[in-house]
């Protein structure tokens, strides 16, 4: 019988996911890829919420919170993609290294 999945396992999984997300956000040149990194980071946080909800006696608050988080993430992505499309229409590129209009 396989060993039982513990809270630590979940936390390790979410830590790995979060790190991959941060790495993606910091290194990808493609704006879409950056957004995907952000999604990974958000989902890592959601795993944490669900895990803590399951392994502690705090009830289902954490799971409900995760649902909210997913909905908000969906909305955020919609807005972010819209911004990316708008930027593309103006500059004909989504390469973040070329988007330095806000340079001081």
């Amino acid at each position, binding site marked *: 019988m396989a060993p039982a999945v513990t809270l630590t396992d979940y936390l390790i999984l979410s830590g790995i996911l979060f790190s991959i997300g*941060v790495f993606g*956000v*910091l*290194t990808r040149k493609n704006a879409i890829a*950056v957004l995907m990194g952000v999604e990974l980071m958000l989902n890592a946080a959601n795993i944490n919420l669900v895990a803590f909800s399951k392994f502690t006696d705090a009830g289902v608050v954490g799971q409900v919170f995760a649902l909210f988080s997913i909905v908000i993430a969906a909305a955020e992505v919609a807005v972010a993609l819209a911004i990316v499309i708008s930027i593309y229409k103006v500059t004909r590129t989504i390469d*973040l*290294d070329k*988007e*330095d*209009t*806000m*340079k*001081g």
Partner: protein
Amino acid sequence: MYPCIEHCIWLIPLLPLTGAMVNLLIGSRLPRPVTHTIAIGTIATSFVLSVIAYLHIVSLPPGQRQFIDTVYTWIGLQGFRVGLSFLVDPLSVVMALIVSGVGSVIHLYSVGYMHGDKRYSRYFGFLNLFAFAMLLLVLSNSILLMFVGWEGVGLCSYLLIGFWFEKIENAKAGMKAFVVNRIGDFGFIVGFMLLFTAVGVRTGTWSLDFGVIKSNIGLVSPAILTAVGIMLFVGATGKSAQIPLYVWLPDAMAGPTPVSALIHAATMVTAGVYMVARMNFLYALAPDALRVIAIVGALTAFFAATIGLVQNDIKKVLAYSTVSQLGYMFIGVGVGAFGAGIFHLMTHAFFKALLFLGSGSVIHAMSGEQDIRKMGGLSSKMPITTTTFVIASLAIMGVPGFAGFFSKDDILYHAYISPYGGTFVWLLGVVAAVLTAFYMTRLVILTFYGNPRMDHHTAEHVHESPKTMTIPLIILAILSAIGGYIGMPAIFGVHNVFAQFLAPVFASGVRLPEGSVSLEWTLMGVSVLAAFSGIGFAYYLYGVRTELPAIMAEKYNTAYRWLLNKYYVDEFYQKYIVGGLMGLKDLLGVFDARIIDGTVNGTARLGRRLADFEGAFDRVVVDGAVNAVGDGIVSAGAVLRKLQNGLVQNYLIVAVIGMAILLSLVLL
């Protein structure tokens, strides 16, 4: 009889004002028939309303023939009110009838006379405005409102005399009328302000209403009343063209002829006579002022008549005759016979309007020629004009039976018996009557009879005027012929209807002694003799021995020259009064340039020095501080801006690194 009229007196002046507004604002876009229909319609309606007011007044018992129609409070202060209110009594109703009646006739005449003018609607607008101002003047219930009308007629005379302003002389004549009137108005203002103050201080009642002043006048000292009376009369000398301010009236000929008729007959010049008659309760207490008026009136009547003897411009002769006749009116009111003055005002309105309209008809036929030396023999070609003109002339000469005879005789009779008149005033009046008869006969003979002296081209053009011009002439001729019978003296065995009608207004006026019947007959005989001797002499000179006038002018060259040049009064005024004022002006100019400008420039220079100093301070200290702060911020920004490279991922890296540092600090 028509009580509703008591509440719509205000319509009488308002209607012409409405007509004036319509014609002046949108008249140029209206067709001509509409323009003159509006103008004539409004003034004619005013006349109808005046007639109704007259009938109403007559239906009241003689003691109560007066009502006041207050429309609106114009000035409402604590203890001082001036209402937009109208006073209707026998005097104002007679004036309203004359102004609107004769005014209507002149409006009608203008349709024919002005038919080719390019500023047709403006002309009728001004004419209506003139009628409005004059009706306001005669109907107002307070001196202040009267003054509004008083100034209004001054303005309108300026506008109409200078109506053909393309010629500089006409514009100048308009200006002269305005300026000379302003001098008189100044006296008028001083007069009524003095009266206002005197009555107010004495009684605590601050009012300019005729009724209030009348009931309190007894409390004011006679010396002040005399001063007030004379100052008001100064105003009258301006408006009514008396010595020394008569000089504008002969120049007022520059306007279109119907305007001359309006100014000389119905409006404007009668204002002064009316004012003195209206203030009769004041003059009754100021006998010295009355004497001044009588003597000035007599001198004006005489001197203006002498000037009229030799003038060659048909309108100039009539102008001086107006001045002379106004002198008569002032003899009338000056000797305390207010009714006689107003009576002559009325008959004069008829025949003087007729004379001017007749002369307009002549000028019209003569293609603009006004010199009587170039006329003659017009009677055959212009029968209506000639007949009416002759009737008016007989009226002004005082030939028995015509209007002027009764009124002039009334005045001369009262001048003789009144304590304020006397033989001197009477004698001047009689001599003026001889002169009047003389120059009018001369005018009629030279214009209408004898051989034509115009050139061939003009002679062919001579024609009778159109109906719109001759009908007014006929109306006025009838009035000039029979208008005098309402004021027939009692010695003919009738009641003097006119005098009795006006009597309540002058009830508190001057009490004149009664003369004997034989004296009255004698004086009347003298007047008639005066008229016929003038006529006879003129007929002899200009009808029989036509070569004599030129010989006489040669022989008495100096006198002739003085008369022809109107005693050089205009030149005198020009040189000494206008010249004096010009000298004063130059002096004041130098004062201005040296002292006032010097002070102003000095102040300015000082201001500039101060400003220079302040400018330097500003530049060095204030600007320096501000710039230093700005420069500091700019250099700090130059360093900091390098962080802001616009790349999102750089910012994120910084954030992650910062996070890592924080975490390691917390955890380790």
